[in-house]
């Protein structure tokens, strides 16, 4: 079946990111397809390029990258939620006159319409908050 995940919880603050990654791995192991992970609310911080956790803790952004590298999962970040929280890709950084950027591929800034589409166009949407 085709699944999408929504992640609302902030990394290293809530368990949501850990739970979502664990679920994603079990999903793939059972032969399902994970088309989309959509990050909203504090979940957008999962995409922070500069994340630098201690070496004995999981690097959550790297884990998302590993997931994306396994197959066809898109990592979509709500642009409105991200901008106010300081996560800008190169294009948005330029538009806002910032010298650097804090979000990059495979994470992509998208509209909230992609959450609606992920909800309606997959067999299942599971939310981790």
């Amino acid at each position: 079946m085709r699944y999408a995940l929504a992640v609302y919880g902030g990394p290293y603050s809530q368990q949501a990111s850990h739970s979502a990654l664990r679920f994603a791995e079990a999903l793939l192991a059972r032969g399902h397809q994970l088309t989309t992970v959509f990050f909203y609310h504090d979940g957008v911080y999962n995409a922070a390029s500069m994340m630098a956790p201690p070496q004995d803790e999981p690097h959550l952004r790297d884990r998302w990258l590993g997931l994306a590298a396994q197959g066809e999962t898109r990592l979509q970040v709500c642009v409105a939620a991200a901008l106010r929280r300081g996560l800008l890709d190169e294009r948005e950084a330029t538009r806002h006159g910032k010298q650097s950027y804090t979000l990059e591929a495979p994470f992509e800034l998208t509209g909230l319409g992609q959450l609606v589409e992920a909800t309606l166009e997959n067999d299942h949407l599971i939310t981790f908050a």
Partner: protein
Amino acid sequence: MGIVSPGESLAPGELLVILRHAPHGSSWLREGLEAAMVAAAFGREVGLLFTGEGVLALLEGQQAGALGQKGSDNLLAALEMYDVERCYVDAAALERRGLSENDVSLLPVTVLAHADVVALTQCFSRVLSF
């Protein structure tokens, strides 16, 4: 204030958005309403269920908060423009807070008893909760 019309309530729908959080204290309510508006703008059949603390979103007389922080009333005003017509409020959540149908006036809403809340979560094919 809508009268519960079983035919209307039972109509299947595409996306139900459940709103459980109060205005101002966190961004959950605004973020849920924005998801509903976007879905409506894309032409989807959207329903809204206000339950838990979310029923407080429907009280009149709300204002901007500290530093001009926005509440949710401006989003509710915009909802009707976006053709979100199926708005429901959980009777139990109202009652627990000492509120009645007359108190929730920011939107035309249908008040649902427990069995109707259950039916609502079943007749929509997808649910997003906030």
